[in-house]
């Protein structure tokens, strides 16, 4: 049984933000409910009001404006894995979305909800960091745009203010010549370690590269320092650098032991999956073969 709450159904994002501002801590944004209803049931979150944002028409759209794919906050994971525009412009992201939990969760859970919860064990975050995505946050009277990298603060923490609603995720395709890969190991239908890579190979060398890792520590991370180090060298050399970067991963990723794996295991798999993703990325925009672990 869920503790009784009331549902409000505003018709614009501004109205939703105003309600959130008025009700403060007593209200939570409700979209798919995949995470929120779980937390309410386990009494990890309390809410007297759910502000259902699914009646805000504009939030369930996916549009291509010629340079950026705009994904409404209430678009579900299942729509993202199937949507031709996503498959065409963001194929690695489409693959990452197809890996989210199971079909029931993908039918219900939304991209906006996923990013706002910032659950450390999640697929979309690391993939979107490699695309350098941004999120649009609406307050009662104004909107702001922030990079996803800045949006993620810590485990379950983002820069979203209590009186704001995430309305749109803006994702530019990878630049010309890049191709991507997404690789993960998982247990209990959540990733234990997830890595996303995008590479541009020229004359057998990594002309350009973007890397991100999720699930190891509190939040998904771009690996900019490592990217700079392996830019311009061969794939084999890059893989050697990665295998020798234990201390760097330790410091940046802040690995934690949890139900899905020990910190040591996650660090080991981070290096393994990064090496694998780098190898797979030039062959196309799909994901690297994932290891199973259920």
């Amino acid at each position: 049984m869920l503790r009784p709450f009331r549902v409000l159904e505003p018709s614009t994002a501004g109205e939703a933000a105003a309600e959130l501002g008025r009700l403060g801590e007593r209200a939570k944004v409700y979209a798919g409910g995949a995470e929120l209803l779980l937390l309410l049931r386990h009494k990890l979150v309390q809410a007297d009001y759910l502000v259902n944002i699914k009646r805000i028409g504009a939030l369930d759209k996916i549009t291509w404006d010629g340079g950026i794919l705009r994904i409404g906050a209430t678009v579900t994971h299942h729509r993202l894995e199937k949507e031709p525009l996503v498959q065409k412009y963001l194929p690695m992201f489409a693959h990452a979305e197809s890996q989210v939990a199971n079909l029931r969760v993908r039918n219900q859970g939304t991209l906006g909800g996923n990013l706002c919860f910032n659950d450390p064990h999640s697929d979309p975050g690391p993939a979107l960091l490699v695309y350098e995505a941004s999120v649009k946050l609406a307050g009662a009277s104004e909107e702001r745009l922030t990079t996803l990298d800045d949006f993620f603060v810590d485990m379950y923490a983002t820069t979203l203010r209590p009186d704001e609603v995430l309305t749109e995720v803006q994702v530019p395709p990878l630049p010309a010549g890049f191709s991507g890969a997404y690789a993960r190991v998982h247990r209990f239908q959540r990733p234990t370690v997830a890595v996303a890579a995008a590479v541009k190979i020229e004359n057998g060398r990594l002309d350009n590269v973007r890397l991100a890792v999720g699930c190891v520590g509190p939040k998904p991370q771009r690996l900019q320092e490592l990217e700079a180090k392996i830019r311009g060298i061969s794939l084999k050399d890059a893989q050697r650098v990665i295998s020798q970067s234990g201390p760097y991963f330790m410091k940046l990723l802040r690995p934690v032991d949890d139900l899905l794996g020990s910190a040591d295991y996650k660090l080991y798999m981070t290096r393994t999956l990064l090496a694998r993703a780098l190898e797979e990325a030039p062959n196309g925009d799909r994901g690297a073969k994932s290891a199973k672990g259920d």
Partner: protein
Amino acid sequence: MSKETEISEEQQTFALSVIVNGQSWNGQIPVQETLLEFLRNRLGLTGTKRSCESEICGACTVLVESQAVSSCNYLAYEAHGKSVLSIEGLSVGDQLDPLQEAFIRNMGFQCGFCTPGQLMMAKALLLDNPSPTREQIVEGMNGNICRCGAYPAITASILEVAGLTAKK
């Protein structure tokens, strides 16, 4: 339902109108009632099982507008104006669904607790793709746990029905 105008004193109720297994149902329910509670407690349809309550095990799987959902984590009021299919509606009278027949032929179960959920998930998969490969079946069914370990027989059952459909 907008603002708080329709909120009764303590609880907010919702005038739900839903079609369950082909029959329409109209009545008031609290907004926090899950679809699982609605089906089991209000309609007495206990074939849908309550188990992990975390969207992991799949025992509570039902279809809403042909899409598989975890009824334990889905608010019943969201099904307003929609069509819900639970295990009780899978057969037509005495005529079992081909999936049910295949599960019986192949013994796609042991204790049977997860079976309603397995069948409903399989139904959703076949509605979406009538002739999936073995790999697609395994991938699609990965959110339905069977602690007896009937997985090979479950997969074989679905493959069999997929083959039958493909031949038609």
